[in-house]
């Protein structure tokens, strides 16, 4: 059973989960995680994209053998291991109900209706949540608290022990893990300036404390990632979200957290000094709400890596500041401990290789007489046909990762990845500090051909493991100026 639990609220939370998915895929995070995304906007573009990546990751991870020797292969870190892919996302039950119905406005006493009329206008009362809370945390906090409360209380009911509801299952497993010897770690991530995140972050600790057996909640090491404004979008019409108000919302939220012990033992505050535009339109939600990646999400993912790192212990009154003033490998917080630069270099090289070269070559069976393919058949009595659906899944995952990393690099403050046209030579310069090398493809295949035994039981597992080793060896030689 997992010890590490992550709840991500809303689109911002989902984007941070996407970033942590890549850290897990690359091996920068090695502790298995249980991930749950909560968003009333079922069709949110950011959430949907992250879900797709999580499903792909889950499929690829399932092809790897549990035990490995030496280098851990890509996708080795478990995400919701042993569970089905529905466990990544909670199907929000009340998305279609207007807010007025949820608070039972018409059943309130007249004086209470008058009070509510002061707090909420007609738009608020009639708002339903198919597109989320649209930046209205004063509505979202009530709705989310009520909805989560119902689900969390249901989770505590022994009769619901076999319920497939993702949130109930999450809470049950967290409670069981907390009662184990090692306890559990829970991290909650979301924006403090938006709707869903701002509503959900303060709700989790008191809810869980209320349903856990006495003394058990104290065995949960609970932390949160508060994401401050880091992006902007064009202003819309009346009632549309306005990114210019994010700073004001953040100020109010942080004031609350400064004076109220919500229940988190560790808090990470992540943001950016300038709110770069990550979208070209003002979308209220749904599939159209799809913002470009931002380095703050990578920062949040590194915060997750720090929180879940068993080697990291933080004292009660310790305060850490990253001190980073630039987005470079050596200045990212916790990047050294995770060997992030090496892992990302090897992983990006692998994705580039597979997406742009290997996938088509495998599909056309060009590999059938290659030395590594023949060793796979001869030594392990398995073969890689080239038509396996996992290869397509890997291509899709890698393609999105390459887009994600390229879009990060679009920010002029970011100096992490190289940006190139598709070419063999580009394989040697996919991370800052590299140089184009026309022999890159040859050197990687050469490394692949040198690999001896690989402890995997499936052909896809062999491919992932062997490619991890080959690309890591290639990068170690290619980036010799900083790879130590």
């Amino acid at each position, binding site marked *: 059973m997992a010890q590490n639990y992550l709840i991500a609220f809303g689109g911002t939370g989902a984007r941070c989960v996407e970033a942590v998915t890549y850290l897990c895929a690359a091996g920068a995070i090695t502790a298995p995680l249980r991930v749950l995304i909560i968003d009333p906007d079922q069709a949110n573009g950011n959430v949907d994209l992250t879900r797709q990546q999580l499903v792909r990751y889950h499929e690829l991870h399932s092809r790897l053998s549990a035990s490995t020797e030496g280098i851990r292969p890509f996708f080795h870190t478990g995400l919701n291991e042993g569970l089905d892919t529905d466990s990544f996302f909670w199907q929000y039950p009340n998305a279609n109900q207007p807010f007025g119905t949820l608070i039972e406005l018409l059943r309130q006493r007249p004086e209470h209706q008058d009070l509510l009329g002061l707090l909420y206008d007609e738009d608020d009362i009639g708002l339903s949540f198919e597109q989320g809370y649209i930046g209205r945390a004063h509505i979202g906090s009530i709705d989310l608290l009520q909805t989560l409360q119902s689900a969390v209380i249901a989770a505590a009911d022994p009769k619901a022990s076999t319920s497939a509801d993702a949130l109930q299952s999450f809470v049950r497993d967290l409670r069981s893990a907390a009662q184990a010897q090692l306890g559990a770690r829970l991290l909650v991530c979301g924006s403090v300036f938006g709707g869903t995140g701002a509503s959900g972050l303060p709700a989790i600790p008191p809810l869980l404390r209320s349903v856990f057996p006495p003394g058990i909640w104290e065995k949960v090491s609970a932390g949160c990632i508060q994401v401050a404004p880091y992006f902007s979008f064009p202003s819309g019409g009346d009632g549309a979200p306005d990114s210019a108000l994010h700073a004001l919302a953040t100020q109010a939220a942080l004031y609350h957290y400064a004076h109220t012990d919500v229940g988190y033992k560790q808090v990470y505050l992540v943001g950016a000094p300038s709110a770069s535009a990550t979208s070209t339109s003002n979308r209220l939600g749904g599939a159209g709400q799809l913002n470009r990646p931002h380095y703050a999400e990578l920062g949040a993912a590194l915060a997750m890596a720090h929180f879940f790192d068993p080697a990291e212990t933080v004292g009660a009154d310790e305060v850490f500041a990253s001190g980073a003033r630039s987005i470079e490998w050596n200045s990212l917080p916790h990047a050294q401990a995770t060997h992030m630069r090496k892992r990302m270099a090897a992983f990006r090289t692998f994705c580039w290789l597979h997406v742009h070269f290997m996938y088509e*070559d495998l599909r056309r*069976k060009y590999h*059938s007489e*290659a*030395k*590594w393919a023949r060793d796979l058949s001869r030594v392990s009595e398995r073969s890689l046909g080239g038509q396996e659906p996992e290869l397509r899944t890997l291509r899709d995952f890698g393609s999105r990762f390459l887009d994600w990393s390229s879009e990060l690099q679009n920010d002029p403050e970011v100096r992490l990845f190289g940006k190139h046209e598709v070419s*063999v030579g580009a394989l040697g310069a996919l991370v800052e500090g590299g140089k184009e090398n026309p022999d890159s493809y040859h050197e990687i*295949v050469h490394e692949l051909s*040198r690999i001896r035994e690989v402890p995997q039981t499936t052909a896809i597992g062999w491919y992932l493991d062997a490619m991890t080793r080959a690309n890591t060896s290639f990068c170690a030689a290619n980036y010799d100026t900083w790879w130590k």
Partner: protein
Amino acid sequence: MRTFYWFLFFLGLLMVGVGVWAFSSPSSPVVLSDRLDQWYAQMTLLSLVVGACIGLLAGLVGTTRLRHRPNGPASVFLDRVAGTGIIAAVVAAVLASVLSSWLAYGADFGPLSPSEKVELVALTGIGRFSALIGASVAISLLVFAFVTRTRVWGGQYALLEPSYTPNLGH
């Protein structure tokens, strides 16, 4: 290409066998046949050395210079390995021929002009001379295949299958 590689190897062996057993040294009224037999034996040995050196050099260079390329079957790379070996064998054959001819030019065969000596051993004795060429080709191809099989690189199985040579290289 790989099939042709081994065809050439066996052709070389055939040339050696036929040249040695089916042909005798050319007869000449001014050159002792024993002397010519001795010369051909020495040149055969020289051809083997030349072929082995060329094969070894080509193998060492080829395993470091031949490049895997994407967007194409791995068999193309393997054929390039074989092609490199064939080119090396041709070079070995030419070199063995030239060296042998040059040594014939200055050999102590008796009262013959240098060009007559070369003509005697290379043209009149073409059957026997072909054994030198066959020897250089065959040994070059064999050494090249051995070198490419025992080095740890992507072309190990281009010429020698692992099922035939399980304990070579890895």
